[in-house]
């Protein structure tokens, strides 16, 4: 029994945390919120210099060829630091290519994504209330892409998009260079003011199909795991802020962390966080070993991590009282990010349904 991250991943986590504590954090999130630029360009250059976008890219395509453990700890640390860089968006697109890319597509795009010359994004939402499993309106016909994806988080930064398109078997994927003619982009006002969103229009833009409908399902499972780690990181940072405040703030002659109403809520944050971490680790294992439980483990990681992040972001703000509700305070970053993480890949309810579908199948197989 060795249900733990690899030593290499733990070393990487430590290095990433140190780096991002020095370079990112709420201050840099605020700077991007207040700026025109869609992400922190200087920080992104440093992140690229660390080689992180190349983590999962095979060595043959100019990457480090690292495993899922390493990808997951990077996601956790980016989530923790709120680093306003399109690292996870780029990693999402890399996973899409790894799952479904032809040799030519991989050779064309992976080296550029690994080197930070291209910024990727996976775009499925179309501004309506559909889940990632429902058929999009966007179409790819004879190499021409038409439709609208919005809100696309990090979509203002991206240079390459993997978009969902309608197919006979359900949503499938296309890959499109966002510098192509027929692509239009504009900022979209959305809840997260740090990770900015775009509306991306495609009007007969040249694009290529990327795998089939089954690949899209597989991709969403992998991304569910990756972003569960992001959520763990963000929830962890919020909880540390709440803890520090509960140990410092006084009311009625006591530090507020002495009151059970406060300390039990912090215990609940810890409980939800630990449950989410256990499922996220299971998901990381299932992804890394391509285990048959991936559908189940990924959905559970997603559901548990969204629950932990929502609860922690809401209760962290609550424990801060009035100051937590102000523009100047950092609570809003976590509170807004909780909805961004949910919107990025489908809600808790969607994934709970997928989890139960996987469990039904497992129960039937066992019977």
């Amino acid at each position, binding site marked *: *029994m*060795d*249900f*733990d*991250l*690899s030593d290499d991943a733990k070393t990487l986590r430590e290095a990433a945390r140190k780096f991002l504590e020095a370079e990112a954090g709420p201050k840099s999130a605020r700077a991007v919120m207040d700026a025109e630029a869609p992400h922190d360009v200087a920080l992104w250059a440093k992140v690229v210099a660390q080689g992180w976008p190349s983590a999962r890219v095979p060595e043959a395509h100019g990457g480090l060829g690292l495993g899922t*453990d390493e990808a997951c700890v990077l996601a956790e640390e980016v989530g923790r630091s709120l680093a306003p860089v399109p690292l996870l968006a780029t990693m999402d697109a890399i996973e899409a290519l790894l799952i479904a890319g032809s040799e030519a597509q991989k050779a064309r795009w992976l080296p550029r994504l690994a080197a930070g010359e291209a910024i990727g994004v996976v775009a499925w939402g179309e501004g309506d209330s559909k889940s990632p499993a429902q058929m999009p309106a966007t179409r790819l016909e004879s190499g021409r892409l038409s439709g609208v994806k919005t809100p696309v988080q990090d979509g203002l930064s991206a240079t390459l998009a993997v978009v969902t398109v309608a197919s006979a078997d359900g949503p499938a994927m296309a890959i499109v260079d966002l510098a192509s003619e027929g692509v239009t982009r504009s900022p979209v006002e959305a809840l997260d003011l740090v990770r900015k969103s775009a509306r991306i229009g495609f009007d007969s833009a040249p694009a290529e199909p990327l795998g089939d409908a089954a690949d899209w399902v597989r991709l969403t499972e992998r991304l569910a795991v990756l972003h569960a780690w992001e959520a763990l990181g963000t929830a962890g940072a919020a909880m540390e802020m709440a*803890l520090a405040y*509960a*140990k410092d703030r006084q009311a009625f002659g*006591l*530090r507020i*962390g*002495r009151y*059970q109403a406060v*300390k*039990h809520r*912090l*215990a*609940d944050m*810890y*409980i939800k966080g*630990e*449950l*989410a*971490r*256990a*499922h996220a*680790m*299971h998901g*990381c*294992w299932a992804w*890394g*070993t391509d285990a048959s439980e991936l559908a189940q483990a990924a959905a*559970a990681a997603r*559901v*548990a991590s969204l*629950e932990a992040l929502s609860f922690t972001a809401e209760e962290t703000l609550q424990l801060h009282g009035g100051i937590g509700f102000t523009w100047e305070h950092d609570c809003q970053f976590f509170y807004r990010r909780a909805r961004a993480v949910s919107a990025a890949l489908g809600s808790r*309810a969607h994934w*709970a*349904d997928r*989890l*139960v579908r996987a*469990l*039904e199948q497992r*129960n039937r197989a066992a019977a």
Partner: protein
Amino acid sequence: MDFNDTPEQAAYRAQVRAWLEANAAEYLAPPEKPWGLDEFVARSKAWQRKKYEAGYAGITWPKAVGGQGLTPMHQIIFGQEESRTYVPTGLYSIGLGMCIPTVFTHGTPELIARFVPKALSGEEVWCQLFSEPVAGSDLASIRTRAECDGEAWVVNGQKVWTSFAHRSDFGILVTRTDFSAPKHRGLTMFIVDMKAPGVEVRPIRQMSGASDFNEVFFTDVRVPDSWRLGAVGDGWKVALTTLMHERLAVGGKPRHAPGWQMLIEVARGIETDSASALERADVRQRIASTYIADEGVKLTQMRALSALSRGAMPGPEQSIAKVVVAKTMQDMAAAALDLAESAGFAAEKGSDLEKLQQSYLWSAGLRIAGGTDEILRNIIAERVLGLPGDLRPPKDTPFNEIEPL
């Protein structure tokens, strides 16, 4: 990451499995009708004896006291394999899980020689005499009095929630020997003979109808000073040894308790106007929540096992187990019974719904026993997260002068 045993662990598991197949053949399915108490005790004793003779008793205990001197991983592997069967084990979980480790940690060589082997072989059954009517979560406020009378102590008072006291031969008893000392410093621990004159055991009937617990009354019960565990006034320190073992013993979902699988099956069997209840969104959300909690605890325990397996101490994450499991059982059972409407309220004997009724009743007790939900949240907040403790009277106040705040 790897969920497989090391070769050494796999070998031990195979050995255990082969032994269980040869020796627990009659326990591979649940009993056709529940055993009565006498039969349960008789079967428990016979099973413990078998384990003792085969070298599967006291797996982690030192060899010097009759144990096997193996690692916690060995204990866990044996427990995992044993819990796939329906062998009766509950009679000894307190005695061997908590009482006897306290005896061999704090007892004299004479006490260890007298009591440990017979407990381990199952011949003598033990109970833990800690809680009192006025001292549950706040154990250190117990009032059962022990007064020195030459070579013996005279005990008067009342204990409660004592599992299997009515079937026990001995117990470990925490008493107050100095009422004018501060709360935690006036306590002393003893071994007590449950058959001694002045010990009266009265079963408590629980809400579920079963009687697993007792009240125990002590009236001028004489306990030899040589049966004292630890120094006079050191009872709290000794009790902490017991409670530490309790935290290890009280953890995951009880063996064979209903989980998400049963909820799926129950929902599948219920027809709504359009489809089975399994298609209802609220039911699917409940199944998901149950799975997240139960499976999350299991996976969290695997993290702790991985640490043990490497020879390291597990982190604090396992402290969440009972607080999650008990409430999840309660919520799940209530939801399933409600979902079944009348059939859940008046369930057929032997049906899944009847099991869920039992789970509904039992889970209420589980949220209290072995540390209430509230105490466990305090422990997480204070020991894991480093938050300050509750407001309490000053620690050095003499016990008999404590005024409630």
